[in-house]
């Protein structure tokens, strides 16, 4: 159920996420190690364009990536196919995108 295009989209978005997630995990480890509180973290992210772009990009990539990933899983385990499968993929992507962007805005605005 994956043609070359979807495959490419999934792999490219995964590659985009690699530095982002590693960065995120590193930050978290650093933060926890340094004993930063949640308030301190938020203090740094709020109003920062860099963090906005950082997490914004992540949300875009993850929406694409996970939507395609779920498409595969749903096809293989539930046997969904054709239009229904496409609709499912778009809905999943949209859900991630909307919730994700709201969170990014909340953290960085």
């Amino acid at each position, binding site marked *: 159920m*994956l*043609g*070359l295009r*979807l*495959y*490419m989209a999934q792999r490219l978005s995964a590659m985009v996420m690699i530095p982002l997630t590693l960065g995120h995990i590193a930050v978290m480890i650093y933060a926890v190690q340094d004993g930063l509180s949640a308030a301190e973290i938020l203090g740094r992210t709020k109003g920062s364009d860099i963090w906005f772009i950082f997490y914004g990009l992540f949300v875009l990539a993850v929406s694409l990536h996970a939507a395609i990933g779920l498409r*595969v899983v749903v*096809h293989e385990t539930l046997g969904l196919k054709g239009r229904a499968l496409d609709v499912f993929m778009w809905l999943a992507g949209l859900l991630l995108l909307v919730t994700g962007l709201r969170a990014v805005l909340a953290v960085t605005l």
Partner: protein
Amino acid sequence: MTADSNGLHVDVWRGSGTEGRFERFLVPMQESQTILDVVAWIQQYADPTLSYRYACRVGMCGSCAMMVNGVPRWTCRTHIKKVIKDNAITIAPLRNLPVIKDLAADMDPFFDKWVAAGGVHHPTRDRNDEIEKLSPATPERIETDTGIECINCSVCYAACDTVSSNVDFLGPAALQRAWTLYLDPKDADPGVILEAVSGRGGCHNCHSQGSCTLHCPNGLNPMKAIAGLKRATVSSFFKGGR
């Protein structure tokens, strides 16, 4: 013969289509004995109606594969000592294929996909031409040699869970053949092959489960071949191949 240490308890799948059940047979144990010998013994001496398939009996034709203790194997070259557990063996028809009767599976889907994956040579010369001089030592040729000795036994096809869950998936053997053909400098149309393996059932559906490679009785590596196809399709994608 009694159920002593000399007897082998063999549970054999009986049935056709989706209906069936296991039936137990007691088979005398021998010094040199393969799973195929066990199955043949049952048909010849215990239940003449048992159906199965074999031809070459030396691991060349790929007709005799079955599930042995839940693992797909070529039965003509599987010594019972390799698989026996507590004097018992379970034998069932190959997974992921329709069952014709008992241990004989219908291999047509496997071969339909072999063709669908583009696994047919596209000639550039004909019988009136000289045979092309080709070095046996190019990287392509060396790579091809690792995948060309496939006996189309469908063991990898039975081992792959993507085949079971995705009806369109062309499967490891067919894709591996496409890969060797793609590498073949004699083939006129590698583009057609990439096209054929990029559809909904194509190489991109493989999740690198690796069961194909692990179970291939000939030690081939379809997983590697499929990765090769993925790379080739991706680079042709970037080169604007489509």
